[in-house]
């Protein structure tokens, strides 16, 4: 079983090569290759889940091959409970995105090849246990994203693609400095790039001199890494790339972006920043909580002000990822569990929202709730599109965090976890939930109730393909809303280990 991660990681690349070799005119063959690849990958991750030992926090399915021996860099893969959830999410969303991309007609071959490459790099980020390898995947991921947004995106795609790229790269280079500094702080030993060996707070007492000041190594480089991860999450004030990227990206890419890529940021905190620099993490928890809170409230207000439904959901992601940051800042068992659960649940619910917006966009070729000229963009969809409306309601309520659906449990856990530490922040953050409910319901009212917009009378309801790829997501948000233990059981030991470590500081 040890090689299985290699298969999960490289299968999409093999699929991408197959897509590139396929004749350009045979678009359906290309789509089928992609679908087969992503389905097999999904099956492999299900197999991983079944074989996964939930009783241990150790890394499982580990593969370690020396890569650059001069620098003690290894090709080192492994997963724990937190990664397991992200792996499954990644496999599931790419499978769904393949189906939702069926209607892409521009340059099909390049599109699906890039999509598969993207999947592989995201797996790489989650699996990597070597910091260098992690960094390589982290940066390589930008390349397919750049093209996916820039070629298949909306009108302002070039600007969005470049902004996304530059922002993430900016954080990335600081992460690079932090990574190399860690390498020297450990004395260039064989474990210098091993994320697992770096964990445990070895650097508490070291100091460095920066621009003439003597500073704590731990704090300085924690913030270097923080910058890299926070931009990806994105935490206020580093969020400005996100609305552009989301609005311009094609549907599937928005789904991936919100569903998995943002989680790479919070995953970076869980896997790298917090366990390597626990003292700095504990010392900075108030700042993280405040930034998380600002993201929650500010993101929600921004969402409320949007007339473009996709932008609305994009800002709601800023708000929801703010909850994850709050959970992380809590550094308690419930908060952390809630944060990881919210990462998964936000992945499924927001993916639903973006897919649904994609479906309506295909029919109307716009995304305005209220058009810039003041006229109605949609209206009365509920009476026209019953299937669509049903799924939309599920997705929206899951996103809102209504009890019985997935978002509720994770948000409740986060609040339970953070309340004892930051009571005021918790109280204010709850307002974020209210605003969230308000803008979602208001959006729903304007889109689905009232007089149908005469422009929209010829819309078809969801077809079989669209219903088919929505089913798994609906199941996820409903089942895990009532019965979250399959997710919690997988991750709780791993999360517990991190909480134990942090509690010592």
């Amino acid at each position, binding site marked *: 079983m040890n090689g299985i991660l290699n298969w999960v990681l490289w299968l999409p690349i093999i699929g991408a090569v197959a897509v590139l070799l396929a004749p350009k005119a045979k678009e359906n063959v290309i789509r089928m290759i992609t679908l087969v690849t992503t389905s097999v990958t999904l099956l492999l991750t299900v197999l991983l889940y079944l074989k996964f030992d939930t009783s241990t926090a150790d890394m499982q399915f580990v593969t370690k091959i020396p890569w650059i021996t001069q620098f003690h860099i290894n090709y080192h893969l492994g997963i724990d409970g937190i990664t397991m959830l992200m792996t499954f999410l990644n496999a599931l969303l790419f499978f769904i995105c393949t189906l939702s991309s069926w209607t892409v007609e521009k340059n099909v071959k390049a599109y699906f090849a890039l999509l598969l490459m993207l999947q592989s790099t995201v797996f790489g980020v989650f699996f990597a246990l070597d910091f260098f390898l992690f960094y390589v995947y982290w940066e390589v991921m930008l390349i397919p994203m750049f093209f996916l947004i820039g070629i298949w995106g909306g009108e302002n795609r070039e600007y969005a693609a470049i902004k996304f790229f530059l922002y993430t790269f900016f954080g990335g280079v600081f992460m690079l*400095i932090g990574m190399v500094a860690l390498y020297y702080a450990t004395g260039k030993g064989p474990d210098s790039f091993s994320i697992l060996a770096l964990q445990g707070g070895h650097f508490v007492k070291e100091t*460095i001199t920066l621009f003439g000041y003597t500073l704590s190594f731990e704090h300085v480089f924690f913030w270097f890494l923080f910058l890299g991860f926070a931009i990806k999450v994105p935490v206020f004030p580093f969020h400005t790339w996100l609305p552009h990227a989301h609005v311009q990206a094609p549907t599937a890419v928005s789904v991936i972006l919100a569903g998995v890529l943002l989680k790479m940021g919070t995953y970076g905190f869980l896997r790298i920043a917090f366990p390597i620099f626990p003292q700095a993490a504990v010392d900075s928890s108030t700042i993280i909580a405040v930034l998380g809170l600002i993201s929650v409230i500010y993101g929600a207000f921004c969402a409320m002000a949007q007339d473009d439904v996709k932008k609305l959901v994009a800002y709601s992601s800023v708000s929801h990822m703010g909850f994850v940051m709050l959970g992380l800042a809590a550094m308690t068992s419930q908060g952390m569990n809630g944060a990881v659960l919210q990462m998964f649940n936000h992945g499924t619910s927001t993916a639903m929202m973006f897919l649904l917006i994609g479906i309506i966009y295909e029919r109307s070729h716009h995304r305005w709730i209220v058009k810039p000229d003041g006229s109605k963009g949609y209206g009365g969809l509920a009476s026209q599109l019953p299937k669509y409306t049903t799924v939309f309601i599920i997705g929206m309520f899951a996103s809102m965090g209504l009890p019985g659906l997935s978002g509720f449990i994770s948000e409740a856990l986060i609040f339970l976890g953070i309340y004892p530490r930051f009571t005021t922040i918790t109280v204010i953050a709850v307002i974020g939930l209210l605003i969230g409910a308000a803008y979602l319901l208001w959006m729903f009212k304007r889109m689905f109730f009232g007089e149908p917009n005469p422009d929209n009378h010829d819309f078809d309801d969801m077809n079989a393909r669209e219903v088919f790829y929505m089913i798994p997501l609906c199941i996820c948000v409903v089942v895990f809303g009532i019965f979250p233990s399959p997710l919690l059981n997988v991750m709780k030991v791993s999360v517990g280990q991190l909480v134990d470590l942090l509690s010592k500081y």
Partner: protein
Amino acid sequence: MIDQLFGFLDNYMPEVISVVLMMSLLVAESAVKDEHAPRVKIHFFTQAVLAVVLICLFGNLGAKPVHIFHNAVTIDPFSTLVKIIMTIGTMGAIFISQSSKDIYSNLKSEFMVMSVGVLIGGMLLASANNMLTLYLGIEILSILSYVMSSFKREDSTSAEAGMKYALYGGLSAGVALFGISHMYGALGSIQFLEMMEKIPTLQGMQLTTVMMGSVLFFVGLGYKISAFPFHMWTPDVYQGSPIPVTSFFAIVPKMAGLAALIRVSNVFFADGSVLSVSWVGLMMVIAAMTMTVGNVTAIGQNSVKRLLAFSSIGHVGMMILGVVVANEVGTRAILFYGITYLFMTLIAFYITSHLSDMYGSDGYDVFRGLIYKHPLMAVIMVGVLFSLAGLPPFSGFVAKFNIFNIIIEKKYYGIAIVAAINSVIALYYYLKLAKTMIFGQADGEERVLGFTPANQAVIAFLFIPVLFLGIFWEKVMTIAGNATIYIK
């Protein structure tokens, strides 16, 4: 006697062959009757001989270091590796010159003569073991470069480029000589080893004199590698010169200058030397300014050639950071950087050259929608741009990683932050060009004539190291690491 003579010739063979090649090219050119005849045979001959030079150099790579001509010239693995980079660069530039319209057909073999001449100067510079040889190297390299930059006789910008280059270059060489004389005055020798041994015994005024001398000397080298504040000639000369010449300038004289700078730094400012502290400070400021000025100015350029020129200044800034750490690790980082930069530069100029020949311009416009006209070329060019920006999995990333590695090892975090921000600025203008090629719509579907299958094959071949050195870089790092400097 004869034994001795041929004994050193063994290692000196590359230089000897190059000189013979240059002579025979002069003869061959005079034998061409029709002025406009393509110099195909001469081209093949040159490339073949340069390939022999390359083989000799590879043979020298593992050999024991030797010092010849009364220790005036040293042939150590370091200089050999630099020579290999320069020779490949020369071969690449000559190859581009063959198909480029920028070089008039009756000047093609002159271009070969000149570039081989510059190569010889560069080899001397890389191997210099005393100040006089070093100065000779600079001069051989420079004088021929001045001519090369004004190759487009009828073009006024080209004439201006040659003039500018000659004036600035002459001035800088003079200043450098002035600096050398100060050093000689204080140290009483021009031989590197003797100078090195003398430094610890210096005191007060003498130290100041040596330091001042080295700063003046750096002016000369700074011009060659276009380091701030001596970079002003670069964009104009790069712009005015024909593209093959520009690509040649971006590689050969630059590598030679860097090699000399590394060697001199190791003599005077090696770790622990009394002078090293002030030198490190100076180099850091120069490196920071060089990369910042290069990258920031590159953003506003409308011509791709000028963009590449300014970006090369940015890269020199990064490489100077390796000089800050005057030890084996720093040298290794620069050499690796040089190797990767060689291939990236060749490809970038190669593609630019063909497009500008086709459309008579080197603006961004000619790159628009290249992906639809020449998918392979566009993909390779984008790969090269990403590599120049330092993105994995391309070799440029490893080069950047090595530089970060050495400066952070020395705990120079401040300069690391400057370098990091510079990487982001650089990425911006590389993305702008990449965007034009991929996202833009092509005006027409016409094929670019210069991209014959043979040319495409060469470009693709040059791309292999760009791709693979980003993943399998251990071997080349070992070679760069073994390229040690021997001063005698």
